[in-house]
């Protein structure tokens, strides 16, 4: 997972479609925010067709991560300052 690997992600959903990843976050994460395609978390761009969601769970972010050969994963990583940045976005 390239630079995401360094964040030691917990993989919640593997090799799904971006739509399945979207639905998973919407149904299973209480706090989620809509972001635009290309939105950056740490050094990773969110890839997909709107609407795209990034979830917040405690100190962690949950988001879809798309690999060209292996589909979309839902991953959970430490959120750090990105949580505040996400919450501060215009609705």
């Amino acid at each position, binding site marked *: 997972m390239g630079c995401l690997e360094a964040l030691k992600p917990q993989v919640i959903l593997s090799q799904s479609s971006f739509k399945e990843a979207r639905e998973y976050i919407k149904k299973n994460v209480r706090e989620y925010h809509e972001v635009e*395609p290309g939105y950056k978390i740490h050094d990773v761009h969110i890839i997909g067709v709107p609407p795209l969601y990034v979830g917040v769970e405690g100190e962690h972010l949950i988001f879809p991560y798309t690999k060209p050969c292996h589909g979309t994963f839902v991953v959970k990583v430490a959120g750090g300052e990105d949580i505040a940045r996400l919450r501060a976005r215009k609705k």
Partner: protein
Amino acid sequence: MTENDEKTALILLGCPQVPVQTSMALYLVHGLRQQGIRPVIAGTQAARKLMEVADPDRHYVLEMTDLDAAIDEITGKQRDFDLCFVFIHNDSGVAYAGTVAYISKARVYALLFGEHAEELAGEIEFPCEVVAAKAVHNPMPLKRKLDKVMQWAVSKR
């Protein structure tokens, strides 16, 4: 979109699992250059290596870049393109095409191929021109459809 007004095209290559991708990408790059359009290829490392090996003297291939680096440059407003061709044979390809359609001002062409080209075409719900053909090993079905879409093919007949 370059400083001297030369038109540019981004060619997004997905996973090179389906054989026709490299052949069609070289054909597309050739056609674009004949039209005076500068092609920039973005893809996975394997997809780029296939292009490099197929065109060792760089007769067709000019600039190549990493897929994520290209997305980064467009979202960072450092660069954009006039045209963008996205090679799609799986769900990830649709996701990348949807992203480019959103972040870039380029006219987007979704080139769908592989066993499930038609089904994947049905998943496209964003503005772009769809070119779909069930082509896995033989590029001709996709080439014929691309020829119909692209001006250079028309002008050469």
